[in-house]
């Protein structure tokens, strides 16, 4: 049964419930205390020990139901498993009920089993075969075929084919029945494999998909990936929020708050038993983001803006500006509309023009330079390709001087900086940090560093 529990834990992880070893130990203890007799109680016990939130409870409930969805088959399987002495490779010798009768006694075990129509016995044989094929190792949907074949092999399909050939000449009617039963068996096996994939494969395939997504260049996403990427960005935002939204009041040991100390200790004649320390408020980040939304950079900017604007708890104040040929403020659009709508509106406002960094920077300096204070981090996201127009690096210098930090995120690789019309090296001179930012992973690192700099 312990093995069964471990399989369940794995399935639970697949369902997105984070389980630590300590929790599985607790769950084991709990299960030992309540026993397996009552499924409802068993489920309650597992939910109590494993789940840590409402969502996880729901996921775990579904997982539990899926896992124990065939209780009577499972039970039969165990009895049979014990009877067979743990060796499931050889299909257990079932004593076929009298129905099959005389002629079938020359047939292989699987044929006999199928003809007997003993559902419990068939289910038991299936479970045995699943064990033999180590079905719980299934990870990816591409493995379905292999595992189905393995299970059928373990069931003894080869002997069945021989029997079918033999019967075709001697007893066509029985051969037909057997063929139909085989068809049903194949379907059953496929179903079992699919269920196993659902239980055990989810975690791996999800991980694989996330990993690929995290490292995929944002600028060249396929349409169907865009939605997944938005989900990923949301989860990144949630992680950053959790990490950085901790309370910002911090006791600063070492600086005595004399006034408060005297007041607190007045009752003891001013003998300072209780000390009060000065508190310092930590700043919350203020961010001004300038995003190039022209051509190839547009999609990266979209995701960046999406991320920055879902960090309300962490960031005090975000003002976003989008530019290509000229620059406009887009904070309101991003705050009030759904991501898709917002992106569409921004694109229609600023458009996919060719970018003009010089005039965009000038627009910013004329209209919005007030937004930059010594507490502000200015983030510029763009490829710094100026189309051979005046880069106006002098404006960037003035912005840099006014701000706390100036971070430049460039979707292009380092090697491309400075080649062709890229003015990155000239701009880089006035930036506190220049980072490459082409994938979700790099985006997360960059934003995490920016927010973390305020601690």
């Amino acid at each position, binding site marked *: 049964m312990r093995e069964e529990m471990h399989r369940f834990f794995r399935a639970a992880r697949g369902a997105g419930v984070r389980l630590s070893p300590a929790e599985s130990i607790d769950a084991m203890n709990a299960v030992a*205390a309540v026993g397996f007799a009552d499924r*409802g109680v068993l489920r309650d016990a597992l939910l109590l020990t494993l789940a840590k939130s409402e969502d996880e409870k729901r996921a775990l409930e579904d997982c539990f139901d899926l896992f124990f969805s065939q209780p009577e088959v499972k039970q039969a399987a165990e009895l049979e498993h014990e009877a067979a002495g743990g060796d499931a490779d050889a299909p257990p010798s079932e004593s076929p009920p009298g129905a099959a009768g005389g002629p079938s006694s020359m047939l292989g075990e699987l044929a006999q089993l199928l003809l007997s129509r003993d559902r419990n016995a068939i289910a038991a044989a299936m479970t045995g075969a699943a064990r033999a094929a180590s079905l719980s190792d299934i990870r990816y949907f591409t493995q379905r075929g292999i595992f189905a074949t393995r299970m059928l092999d373990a069931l003894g399909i080869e002997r069945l084919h021989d029997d079918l050939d033999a019967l075709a000449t001697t007893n066509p009617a029985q051969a037909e029945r057997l063929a139909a039963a085989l068809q049903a068996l194949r379907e059953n096996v496929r179903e079992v494999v699919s269920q196993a994939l659902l239980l055990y494969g989810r975690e791996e395939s999800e991980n694989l998909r996330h990993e690929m997504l995290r490292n995929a260049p944002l600028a060249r996403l396929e349409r169907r990936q865009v939605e997944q990427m938005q989900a990923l960005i949301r989860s990144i935002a949630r992680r950053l929020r959790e990490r950085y939204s901790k309370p910002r009041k911090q006791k600063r040991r070492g600086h005595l708050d004399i006034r408060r100390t005297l007041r607190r200790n007045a009752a003891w004649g001013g003998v300072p*038993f*209780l000390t009060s320390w000065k508190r310092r408020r930590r700043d919350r980040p203020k961010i001004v983001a300038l995003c190039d939304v022209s051509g190839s950079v547009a999609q990266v900017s979209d995701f960046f803006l999406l991320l920055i604007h879902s960090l309300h708890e962490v960031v005090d104040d975000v003002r976003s500006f989008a530019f290509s040929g000229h620059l406009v403020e887009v904070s309101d659009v991003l705050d009030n509309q759904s991501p898709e709508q917002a992106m569409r509106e921004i694109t229609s406002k600023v458009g996919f023009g060719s970018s003009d960094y010089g005039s965009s920077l000038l627009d910013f300096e004329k209209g919005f330079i007030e937004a930059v204070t010594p507490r502000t981090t200015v983030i510029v996201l763009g490829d710094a390709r100026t189309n051979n127009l005046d880069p106006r690096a002098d404006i960037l210098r003035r912005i840099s001087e006014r701000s706390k930090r100036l971070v430049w995120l460039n979707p292009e690789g380092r090697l491309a900086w400075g080649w062709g019309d890229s003015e990155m090296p000239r701009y880089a001179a006035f930036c506190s940090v220049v980072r490459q930012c082409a994938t979700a992973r790099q985006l997360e690192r960059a934003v995490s560093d920016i927010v973390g700099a305020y601690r």
Partner: protein
Amino acid sequence: MNTHLPAASIEAVTSGLASAGYIASRQIATAVYLAERIGKPILVEGPAGVGKTELAKALATWRGLKMIRMQCYEGLDEAKALYEWKYAKQLLYTQILKDKLGEVLGDAETLAAALDRLHDFGDVFFSKEFVEPRPLLQALEQPGGCVLLVDEIDKSDAEFESLLLEILSDYQISIPELGTVVAVVKPVVILTSNGERDLSDALKRRCLHLHIGFPEQKLEERIVESRVPGIAQTLSQQLVSFIHQVRTLDLKKLPSVSETIDWARVLVLLQSNELDHETVKDTLNVLLKYEADIETTLPQVTTFVAKAGRQGVFG
């Protein structure tokens, strides 16, 4: 008698809690049973008024244990939760013992010798006598064990949560001057949270996570009947059915079990045997706490009462 023995079965827990006037669902009973069996605290989450605090009280009554309640709020720190030194007493004692001090040090010739002698008496003022135990320390010091209720943990600061970790997992507290205080008898710990903020994973990991939602109709009827003796059965059925319908509305604050009980009491006081919409309209303010909610519900009252009345006939 059975104070130190964990309950034999989940049914025993249910009947035990029922004897203390708490009608528990199977989940709740399982949680309490497991908490005693594997010695873990229970973290209870759920909307206000579904009986989170009540569970701790009922458990204490059933077990005949003392209940120590620790109400959490913002700014709660270790001086108020764990222990504090009795400064005034320390000060007073130093004043009184001043003369004694002279005697003790009188024949010391050098400063160093006096200091040495003082060291021998060193920790007099930082001993058990001068510690003022606060709820958490009290809970550990109870000779017969107790039920420790840490109420509304989500109201406290994140630092306080970390402070609790040592108690929750090892049932001990470290006091720098005295060393580690280990629980005489492990208390049963119940933490409640209204979900105002997310608790840390470290805390959640150490607890059994129990969510109490609004009870099912049958269960709530039993709760009302046990809490409001003398209520007519038809009335309690209609009343619970009515409340279940109200909970389907989009309200600011849904009425929970405590409101159901209050309302049942009011109706019993008004000597009504059945739900009729005049009484309901007059007493709706017992059930709903916001003017806007009452306005949303008022137009629905007649239909709800009619439905609830049918419930009484067929249910």
